[in-house]
């Protein structure tokens, strides 16, 4: 189990802090505080209870304490929950499906069927893909960007879909927070809809519906613990990553590739596993264009283009999409050109290193005291020996309207919870294979469905007892630095 979580291949991820300082802030019953340098807790002592909400509110670690993530959202917790009389529903992300399909060497559609079969066997009533939630997030994100564009809001707006990145910003770069988009992620939106529809359909209270999500990333567990604006029941009860799903399957002694299972018609299977009122059910597992993190950057440009054509009489064939490379594969820009002039842009930034450079560029007062005069003169003198300046354009996401930011290098397809490369395969090739699987998932062009999606989401909000804000928006705030003297006493790392 611990090998499953070993962090040795997490190079360039935003890693969690070494030790947690939180226990000393929470009143605790006995001498179980475990806070010193790398000490191993004695097994007889129960570890201090730290909830994910504690992690969110504490500045001790950069993202989260892995142990806590796992303790609260483990497959063991799920097995325990399954013994209760709740109604169980699940949603599965695209990247997790790709990872599992790759690991079990099956097509994604086959994987979907096998997974649905397995989850049903375990007692799950409804299982859906996160496509509906993602498409609504994409539409909301793009529309809010188009609105900003009309308001001439100064960019860039930064995506908040990646919970690792968001938490890092909240804890270490609070000046970034006003730039974060408040559009909820597919996990949360899917969860809200799935819980509401299930509750309504089966006539059970909402809090009796237990929602499992399968996500590429451990930090999605943290996202699920963020408080809702109305303080009500959460939309997600347990988040498992593909790695943990594998552990779960192994522990239960199941075989995912069940011998007794005969593959059915995939769309039929999708339809039968979703709640009756699930909209666009034939597309419940469908994919989107753009990056393998969801395509937020691309979709914004696509929908903006469509908006200009339909509302502002722009000529359709005068548009061009241009991709400008950055200094590495995890940083690039997409530009929407109209009659050879740039009219909108999205940046893609993956991995801690690239995030670093972006946040430093966006820091107010970033420029140093008095470099300019000096620099100009330096340049003059160095001319003779200077190597040829790079003349080609290089991506600069800090100047874009919108930046899609993911904490993991290569984005969500390479999430921290995805299954590690098989023996003898290097990581890079493994990621490429994962991308291939991801790309094999059939697309449903969100641009052609904007009006239908909006129409449906409005009626959904109307019929629910929730506000639009509750369903589709989230909020972020600075995590205050701990300054308490007792913290220094017990938890200070030096």
């Amino acid at each position, binding site marked *: 189990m611990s090998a499953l979580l070993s962090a040795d291949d997490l190079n360039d991820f935003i890693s969690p802090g070494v030790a947690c300082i939180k226990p000393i802030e929470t009143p*605790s019953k006995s*001498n179980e505080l*475990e806070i*010193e340098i790398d000490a191993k807790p004695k097994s007889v002592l129960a570890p201090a209870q730290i909830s994910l909400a504690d992690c969110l509110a504490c500045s001790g670690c950069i993202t989260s304490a892995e142990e806590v993530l796992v303790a609260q959202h483990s497959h063991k917790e799920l097995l325990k929950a399954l013994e209760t009389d709740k109604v169980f529903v699940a949603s599965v992300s695209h990247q997790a499906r790709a990872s599992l399909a790759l690991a079990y060497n099956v097509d994604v559609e086959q994987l979907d069927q096998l997974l649905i079969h397995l989850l049903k066997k375990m007692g799950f009533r409804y299982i859906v893909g996160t496509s509906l939630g993602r498409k609504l997030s994409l539409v909301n994100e793009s529309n809010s960007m188009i609105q900003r564009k009309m308001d001439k809001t100064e960019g860039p707006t930064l995506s908040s879909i990646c919970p690792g990145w968001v938490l890092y910003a909240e804890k270490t770069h609070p000046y970034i927070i006003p730039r974060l988009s408040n559009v909820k992620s597919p996990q949360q939106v899917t969860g809200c809809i799935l819980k509401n529809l299930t509750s309504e359909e089966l006539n059970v209270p909402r809090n009796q519906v237990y929602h499992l999500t399968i996500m590429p990333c451990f930090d999605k567990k943290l996202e699920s613990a963020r408080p809702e604006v109305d303080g009500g029941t959460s939309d997600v009860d347990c988040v498992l990553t593909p790695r943990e799903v594998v552990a779960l399957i192994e522990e239960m002694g199941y075989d995912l590739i069940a011998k007794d299972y005969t593959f059915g018609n995939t769309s039929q299977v999708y339809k039968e596993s979703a709640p009756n009122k699930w909209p666009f059910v034939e597309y419940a597992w469908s994919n989107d264009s753009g990056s393998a993190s969801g395509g937020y950057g691309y979709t914004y440009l696509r929908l903006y283009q469509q908006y200009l054509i339909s509302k502002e009489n722009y000529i359709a064939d005068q548009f061009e999409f241009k991709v400008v490379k950055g200094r590495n594969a995890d940083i690039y820009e997409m530009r929407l050109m109209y009659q050879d002039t740039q009219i909108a842009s999205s940046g893609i930034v993956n991995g801690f290193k690239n995030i670093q450079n972006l946040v430093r560029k966006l820091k107010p007062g970033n420029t140093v005291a008095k470099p300019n005069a000096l620099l100009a003169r330096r340049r003059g003198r160095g001319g003779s020996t200077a190597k040829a300046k790079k003349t080609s354009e290089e991506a600069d996401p800090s100047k874009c309207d919108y930046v899609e930011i993911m904490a993991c290098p290569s984005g969500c397809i390479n999430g921290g919870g995805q299954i590690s490369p098989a023996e003898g395969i290097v990581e890079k090739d493994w990621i490429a294979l994962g991308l291939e699987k991801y790309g094999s998932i059939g697309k449903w062009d969100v641009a052609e469905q904007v009006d239908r999606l909006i129409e449906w989401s409005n009626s959904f909000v109307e019929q629910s007892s929730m506000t639009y804000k509750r369903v589709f928006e989230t909020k972020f705030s600075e995590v205050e630095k701990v300054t308490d003297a007792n913290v*220094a*006493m*017990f938890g*200070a790392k*030096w």
Partner: protein
Amino acid sequence: MEEPINANPTILSLAQLPKRQETGSPFSTTLSANHKLISNALKLSLLEEEDEYSEEDIDSDEEEDPIDPQEIFDLISTISDPEHPLTLGQLAVVNLNDIEINTSKYLTEVVIRITPTITHCSLATLIGLGIKVRLIRSLPGKFRVKLLIKEGSHQSESQVNKQLNDKERVAAACENEQLIEVISRMLATCV
């Protein structure tokens, strides 16, 4: 503050603590240490004018009054425990028998083995830091203090030992205001 980590420590009475048998106020030892520190500082500041160190300068005046374990004990046994209104001497965290002094030509090594009050004591590094700071501030420059957790008394001996004897980590900790505030409180009871 919450409940202390070690709620019921064993406490020694003041009378039980080891004392120097000879006459003389407890102040004299610290004073002499301070005196040495000052003379040392003066000595070093003169270096600018002198082109070469003379070896006599370095080890001349300390022969007649070497610092002994009792003196080290007196310096650190009065440090307060961060959790209890008691000193490290009273809690037997520091013991006279666990202080060792090794003298060589130029340097004097002090090896102190501390006994945290409970094996699980997460405060061991903080207490150790307090002792380290106290000795750095009080002893002349020729001393090298090695602080060790007494064998078997702590579950993460080697990690704690390593951190406490890392010069750079200790120096950086001394620039951490929050930590120094706590340390100052611990040292406030020292004479």
